[in-house]
């Protein structure tokens, strides 16, 4: 699998959420995602970028394009140096929240993508990686 590091965007202000959504949309179109696939990936990106900003106190997102024979993928890796998540299993449950949200950011986002990976260290930060694949490209 080849990984192309496409760009790294900062997530330190509300305006950055709009930029992350736009960059995600441009790449989804470039990779030939259909409208529903695009909408799911952009929505997941928006949720996770907001988590990085609000719960992680800011951070960045790495945008990668993955190429494998016969398919292409878009991977977004959100990283912050925030307080970390004490109990990931609990945080992944529908309805769990520490802020003023409905707590559906993580579990909901997971349903919108093909691969979801989360790791967190108390006092060090959180890293969430999401990937959506587009198969049968010619």
């Amino acid at each position: 699998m080849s990984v192309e590091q496409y760009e790294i965007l900062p997530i330190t202000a509300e305006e950055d959420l709009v930029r992350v959504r736009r960059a995600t949309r441009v790449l989804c179109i470039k990779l030939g995602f259909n409208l529903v696939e695009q909408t799911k990936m952009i929505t997941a990106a928006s949720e996770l970028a907001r988590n990085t900003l609000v719960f992680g106190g800011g951070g960045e997102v790495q945008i990668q394009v993955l190429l494998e024979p016969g398919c292409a993928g878009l991977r977004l890796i959100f990283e912050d140096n925030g307080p970390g998540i004490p109990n990931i299993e609990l945080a992944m449950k529908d309805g769990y929240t520490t802020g003023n949200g409905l707590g559906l950011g993580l579990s909901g986002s997971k349903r919108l993508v093909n691969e979801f990976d989360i790791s967190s260290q108390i006092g060090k930060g959180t890293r969430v990686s999401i990937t959506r694949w587009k198969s049968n490209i010619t």
Partner: protein
Amino acid sequence: MDRIPILRMGAFLLVTIQVDMHDRLAETLQEDLAERVVSDEARGVLIDISSLEIVDSFIGRMLGRIAMISATLDARTVVVGMRPAVAITLVELGIPLEGILTALDVEKGMEMLEKSLDQWD
């Protein structure tokens, strides 16, 4: 500061969301609408989201809050024009748009509000 325009159509207020809103703009809209419902004595609020490419949990919650605030001020809210891909994504994301009336387009939304006027008055 940027603001989303609120138009008056008879007893109703019409809002067309045409930009990728940042969070603060969404919060401003919520406050502006509450003010206008009272100052215009509006009986209904129509929110056209046909230009929105995504509705994430933040915007979903904002729509819910607008509907609740309006209801508290005796006005009904109808959200119109949601794209099919947005509806599919919202359901999968698990955002309940409970308590929010929806219609396919502005015209049907208006009919809905007019009917609600007949019912309530």
